[in-house]
């Protein structure tokens, strides 16, 4: 059997790539799950085209899935890969730029014929030399023909058999990294056994055949062991950002006792939140796939008036469409969470790529003086916590919250130590069922936090009217009085500002003072943290201040900034958070590091930048 040498590694980045129909997203997910089961730290990142099935064998149609796994907690999916699986020449061409020097490249040798090589846009018949990677560790496995052969006895047509190529490939990778097959076999059974046992059988056979092929042919000089990570004890699951947002909302609904309503319109990369919530009728979640983005938020506003915890989910272009209704939620002072899973913009932009360029739109993209609470999640799993917090803040403070996520967080996954709901705080919305003096309900009467009361239709004696016209500061009847308008504008702003008293102070990772403070917000945390931690291990004087609370900002931010010689604000846009900080803190100089390529930062480029700033 396996005669190759076992080498122990700290961490490995593997990238699966092929046609969008090759099943690479699933292959990557199953590899990642099996590694998580083996106790490794994991971070994943899918990189896929906007087209569902772009022309086969072309660079435009290449879909990729990167897994970073290792013997500690992984904070990023890794910049460059140690192993590339390229199911055809186009996949090789599209991903060659992500290879580490001397990386291992597993190819389906059957697909590297002259025609396919030309179809992928190579000008010679030797793609490896053309890319300058001929000296890399290239493993040409005849994946297509071996899969066919392995499934000779299976009662399926050829097309169905060839669909199992990805399982053969996964088997090869499992051998290379000494992963057990058991978890994947269980998945295959659960997925296919009922529908078509022959398909289940074929997939399992292909998986085993791939594993055995690699072991028997000594395809690799070495195989690798990655020791389990030293993670805190407990029960874990894998979770991606979209699923975490959905579940965080359900948690806020359970804690508040308010039924959850989601009105949304499908949009990449946010749709999965709606899909996850639609599954949860067992927990009483009501979802509406509305006729458009506007109806999505308007149904949510209606549900909120009727007493539900209402949310609407979208991405950039959809946020633009929801702007007017967000203003309605602000002026009616109803609880509502709007999720914006940011993608590349403007307009349709880059639907499947990540970006942070909707920050200023989220803060100010509405008519009139129209402040919202804005918070941003920063890892796939903390999307759960920030969705929960968004629910708590919106219901307790009676003002909408905009929760920012992004394509990277939404699709990326990581192991998550499953929390217990008993450790989460209570949520107490200011629900009114009768007035103190027995008189009529005054919709704009406020508590000490400036939150108005929430009285639902159906409650006897609390009949009242609210709406988009400016209202009397107490009664809720229409008022065009100049002083009243001033008061209402000021009060709505003060109510949002007051939320500062209910959010945690900003923390710093590293020393409280020093040469360089790296500032970031939202989904870039993993990359910034990795860069800063590595540099600190190298003895560099650098700290990280990563924001989740954008509006209002935590109250101690100025005290943090004043202790650093240089501050660099890093974000995946042209400098929006830097501008926002300049507005609030004119006494500091904010340097910038920006990238707008639809891709996350790489740790390498971050370190280069920080080192150059340290001089």
């Amino acid at each position: 059997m396996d005669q190759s040498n076992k080498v122990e590694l700290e961490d490995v980045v593997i990238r699966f790539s092929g046609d969008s129909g090759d099943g690479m997203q699933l292959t990557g997910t199953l590899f990642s799950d099996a590694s998580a089961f083996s106790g490794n730290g994991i971070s994943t990142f899918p990189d896929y085209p906007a087209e569902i099935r772009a022309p086969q064998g072309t660079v435009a149609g290449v879909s990729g899935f990167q897994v970073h796994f290792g013997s500690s907690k992984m904070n990023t999916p890794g910049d460059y890969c140690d192993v590339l699986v390229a199911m055809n020449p186009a996949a090789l061409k599209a991903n060659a730029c992500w290879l580490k020097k001397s990386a291992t490249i597993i190819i389906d040798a059957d697909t590297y014929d002259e025609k396919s090589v030309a179809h992928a846009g190579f000008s010679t018949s030797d793609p490896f030399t053309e890319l300058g990677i001929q000296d890399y560790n290239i493993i040409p496995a005849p994946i297509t023909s071996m899969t066919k052969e392995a499934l000779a006895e299976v009662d399926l047509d050829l097309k169905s058999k060839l669909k199992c190529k990805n399982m053969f490939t996964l088997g090869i990778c499992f051998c290379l990294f000494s992963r057990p097959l058991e978890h994947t076999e269980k998945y295959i059974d659960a997925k296919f056994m009922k529908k078509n046992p022959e398909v289940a059988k074929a997939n399992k056979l292909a998986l085993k055949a791939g594993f055995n092929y690699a072991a028997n042919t000594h395809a690799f000089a070495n195989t690798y062991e990655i020791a389990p990570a030293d993670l805190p004890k407990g029960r874990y699951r894998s979770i991606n950002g979209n699923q975490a947002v959905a579940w965080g909302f359900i948690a806020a609904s359970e804690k508040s006792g308010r039924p959850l309503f989601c009105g949304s319109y499908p949009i990449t990369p946010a749709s999965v939140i709606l899909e996850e919530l639609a599954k949860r009728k067992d927990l009483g979640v009501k979802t509406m796939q509305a006729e458009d983005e506007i109806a999505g938020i308007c149904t949510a506003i209606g549900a909120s008036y009727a007493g539900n915890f209402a949310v609407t989910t979208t991405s950039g272009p959809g946020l633009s469409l929801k702007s007017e209704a967000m203003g309605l939620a602000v002026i009616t002072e109803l609880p509502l969470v709007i999720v914006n899973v940011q993608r590349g913009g403007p307009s349709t932009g880059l639907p499947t790529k990540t970006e942070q360029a909707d920050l200023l739109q989220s803060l100010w993209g509405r008519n009139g003086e129209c402040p919202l609470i804005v918070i941003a999640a920063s890892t796939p799993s903390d999307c759960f916590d920030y969705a929960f917090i968004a629910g708590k803040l919106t219901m307790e403070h009676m003002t909408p919250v905009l929760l920012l996520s992004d394509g990277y967080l939404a699709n990326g996954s990581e192991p998550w130590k499953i929390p217990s709901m008993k450790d989460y705080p209570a949520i107490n919305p200011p629900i009114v069922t009768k007035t103190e003096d027995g008189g009529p309900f005054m919709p704009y009467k406020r508590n000490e936090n400036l939150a108005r009361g929430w009285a639902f239709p159906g409650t006897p004696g609390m009949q009242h009217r609210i709406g988009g016209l400016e209202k009397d500061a107490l009664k809720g009847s229409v008022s065009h009085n100049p002083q009243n308008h001033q008061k209402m504008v000021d009060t709505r702003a003060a109510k949002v500002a007051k939320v500062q008293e209910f959010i945690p102070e900003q923390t710093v990772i590293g020393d409280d003072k020093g040469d360089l403070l790296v500032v970031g917000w939202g989904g870039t945390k993993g990359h910034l943290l990795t860069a800063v931690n590595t540099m600190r291990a190298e003895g560099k004087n650098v700290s990280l201040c990563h924001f989740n609370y954008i509006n209002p900002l935590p109250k101690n931010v100025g005290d943090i900034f004043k202790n650093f010689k240089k501050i660099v604000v890093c974000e995946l846009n042209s400098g929006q958070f830097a501008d926002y900080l300049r507005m609030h803190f004119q006494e500091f100089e904010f340097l910038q590091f920006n990238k707008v390529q639809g891709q996350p930062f790489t740790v390498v480029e971050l370190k280069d930048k920080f080192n150059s700033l340290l001089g």
Partner: protein
Amino acid sequence: MADNIKNYTAQDFKSDQEVKWCPGCGDYAILNAVAKAMPEVAKTAGIPHERFVVVSGIGCSSRFPYYVNTYGFHGIHGRAAAIATGMKVANPELSIWVTSGDGDSMAIGGNHFIHAVRRNIDLNLLIFNNQIYGLTKGQYSPTSEFGKVTKTSPFGTVEYPFRPGELVIGARGKFFARSLDIEVALTQQLCEAGAAHKGMSVIEVLQNCVIFNDKTFAKFTATKELRQEKTIILRHGERMIFGKDNNKGLRLNGFELEVVTIGENGITEDDILVHDAHNPNPSIHRMLVDMEGPDFPVALGIIRDVQDITYDDKVCSQVADIQCNCQIHSVDELLNSGNTWEVK
């Protein structure tokens, strides 16, 4: 009838707010009709006062929530149907009334309108159709007649109008009725029938805008006699007879409707169509909503009233069915479901 349902009067449903429509506006009559209908609906369906909600968008019609003493939500332009849909799904026990105009429902809110109709969600939606934009001071609307001269069409419009009833039927609607603002009793009756109907009820009220489109319906409404001659009030199970002498009727000639006179050319009452509002096939309903002068009377009353499943019922029954038989009852159970592993 539940014990807590009082015998309400129209006064219980009118608010203390000063009504600010123009003097002589048709909206006053509609307000009266609705305020009279609500106590009847409360009594018949056993709905207490606090479960009535009026939702609106933007426009003259949309000031309605301020003038009724129920829960009220004044939304944004065109979106009332969407807002009301969310409310109804959140709490199906509410009796939700949407007031809107031809601009609100047929133009900016057209998409929400057709989808609310298609879903057959249990709302009562009133369209105050005055064929003009009133609150923005006199521009043409999607229901203005072809060639209409207005501020934004100084040489006449060059586009055909929507007929709300045709749109309802095109969107697979189940209830459509039509009234005139001056026919307060008929409007009240239609509101009660719309509220009793389970599913989306659309009630179009042809409403006179005294300032920007005065007398636009006068050619068939100006006098009682004209109304008798130029309109027909349809009643389920009754023959489609109209006219001041009750001798005109509608019959089917091939695939077309035609107006005939009873007693002429051998026509007897037996030749006249009997109105079947409950017929799921909308073919004749569509011909009825399309009728207009000079050759045909304008159809009033309940033109279509067909029972079918409703969206709000299905949303709730789906949740209830799944909850009967589910494994996950709490967030803790959800978080621990599926693939998990232990780190020791």
